[in-house]
């Protein structure tokens, strides 16, 4: 694929640069125009959305956004209570609402999800790629189902996780482990598929060299194939996690609820940032909607940060054979 891209780009560049190529007829110019339009359309819409959201939330980029929990008491009422009850207005008013619950909750959920999904996903992918006989009917069925699972609506994973939590005997399911099971199930197909791609990209020569030196298949996989595939696996996993961090529907389905406390363990009650944004964006109070816009930017920054980590890992460990 990369060869094709390079060629097309080289041709286009030279065409524009020299202006002599026969390719530069009307049809090719129109085609180029369509390509540019498609690119701009996507980027401009995205930029417009982000800028609009950032402007709307611009009044709320203060420390309360990170240090405080959700507050939904209308400001005038909060001022009244504050005077009468001697509570600082910052502790009550929706002008000081924050996403502490959501941010910490999402971080806990991501760590737990990673702990669940990464070992399972890598193990499953390694089996399918290195050990499984893909001519047997059950392995083919697993492969087809994996592709299908990646396209299942996320809310279904929420129902599945709620059922698993029920079987495990948890009465209240809106805890870290409950949300993490839903998100881990959600990203498992993505992790498996990207890990398999990464394993497939490791040249056969390395495996054969190792086997020729007397290593078993297991030793070859553990010492040669898997380490070589780390950049691809890490990238795929982190991209999977950044999908998970933006999910609200499966978490609501599991039963995560608004909390005013920091999570302290795998069985703590939590909520996630996207849930809090979703709830606050539909509030009638303008101050809360404004805070929701600021929260969207925070979530976006978290996702971009995770993607940046993926790129750094890829660049740091990338090898060419």
């Amino acid at each position: 694929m990369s060869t094709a891209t390079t060629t097309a780009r080289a041709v286009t560049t030279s065409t524009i640069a020299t202006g002599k190529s026969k390719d530069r007829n009307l049809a090719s110019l129109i085609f180029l125009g369509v390509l540019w339009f498609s690119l701009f359309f996507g980027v401009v819409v995205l930029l417009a959305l982000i800028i609009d959201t950032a402007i709307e939330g611009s009044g709320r980029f203060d420390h309360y956004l990170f240090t405080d929990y959700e507050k939904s008491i209308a400001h005038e009422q909060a001022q009244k209570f504050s005077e009468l009850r001697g509570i600082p207005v910052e502790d009550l008013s929706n002008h000081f609402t924050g996403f502490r619950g959501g941010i910490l909750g999402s971080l806990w959920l991501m760590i737990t999800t990673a702990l669940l999904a990464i070992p399972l996903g890598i193990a499953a992918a390694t089996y399918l790629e290195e050990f499984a006989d893909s001519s047997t009917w059950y392995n083919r069925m697993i492969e087809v189902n994996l592709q299908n699972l990646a396209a299942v609506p996320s809310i279904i994973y929420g129902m599945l996780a709620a059922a698993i939590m029920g079987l495990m005997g948890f009465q209240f399911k809106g805890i870290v482990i409950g949300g993490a099971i839903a998100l881990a199930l959600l990203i498992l197909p993505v992790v498996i598929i990207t890990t398999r791609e990464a394993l497939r990209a490791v040249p056969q020569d390395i495996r054969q060299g190792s086997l020729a030196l007397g290593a078993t298949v297991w030793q070859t996989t553990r010492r040669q194939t898997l380490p070589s595939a780390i950049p691809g696996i890490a990238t795929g996993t982190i991209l999977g996690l950044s999908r998970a961090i933006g999910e609200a529907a499966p978490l609501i389905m599991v039963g995560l609820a608004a909390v005013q406390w920091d999570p302290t363990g795998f069985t703590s009650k939590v909520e996630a940032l996207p849930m809090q944004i979703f709830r606050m964006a539909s509030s009638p109070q303008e101050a809360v909607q404004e805070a929701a816009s600021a929260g969207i930017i925070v979530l976006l920054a978290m996702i971009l940060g995770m993607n940046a980590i993926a790129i750094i890992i890829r660049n740091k460990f990338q090898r060419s054979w």
Partner: protein
Amino acid sequence: MPLSSREADLLNVTPIRRALVPGLAALALVLTACGSDDSDGNGNGGTGDGNGLDTSVTGEVIVDGSSTVYPMTSTAGQLMKAEGSSIEVSVGESGTGGGFEKFCVGDTDISDASRPIKDDEEVPVCEENGIEFTELLVATDALTVAVHPDLAVDCLTVDELVALFGPKSTATNWQDINPDFPDEKITGFIPGTDSGTYDYMAADVVGDESETLRNDFESSEDDNVLVQGISGTEGAVGFFGYSYYEENADTLKAVAIDSGAGCVEPSAETAQDGTYTPLARPLFIYVNNKSYTEEPAVAEFTDYYIANLADIAEGALFIPLNDEDYAATQEALAGISG
């Protein structure tokens, strides 16, 4: 009879409740008297009259249910925390029906509801699982029918509401509803079928057997979308909770409702005095009696919630109960442990 805050602290409901089982009615009377003492008229359990919060109680309270009532219960939890309590209240919003599903198997301590529990479907489940509960009326919401501000429609009768929103309605022009109305196309923006607001309009106002509304209106689960649609479309109409109208009163026009006794505007006063019918709807919380009597955190939270009900309702932009309803709620609360 103003109490000093110290006296009020001594009156802290928890020990009293256990000691004065026969005198519960008296307690309710005392509290009611305090409530009606407030100068602002609608301030039952008003600001500052000794909320009786015991900050030494710890524990968890699990609440789920209606997303309409969510702001009330969430505000109660926030206010209690701001006053120094360390009780952990988690508030979900699975919807009224979803809330009762969890409540009736004992997963939650309190269920928020924007309609009463269904006697034929939900109560039997609770009974099967041995869940005894108490219904507490916590606030009133004036369902507001709003139109585009330039539309010359100021008042609708209940029959006109049926003609406008009912499932059999074919009206596409305002003149189809009433010849006196302007010659303008009707564009409707109504809440989604999953919401309690839709259910209330369908079952309690329109009252068609199918319990549905016409399906050619645009619908959204996000009331802010309805507000935007109505304020941006000529001849548009829709309905939502009063707080959404209150916050957007400059871009919408609320329609008065005539249920036979003249046109009544939606407002805190008309919802409280009962004249804004049939669109003033009650909001409830359902408390699991066993949780209340056995878990101090649930009892403390519920007592605090009800003792500060008017403040919580105002803080969450709902309409506080009138004194009579508030007294009834207090009596019901006192009855749980009785």
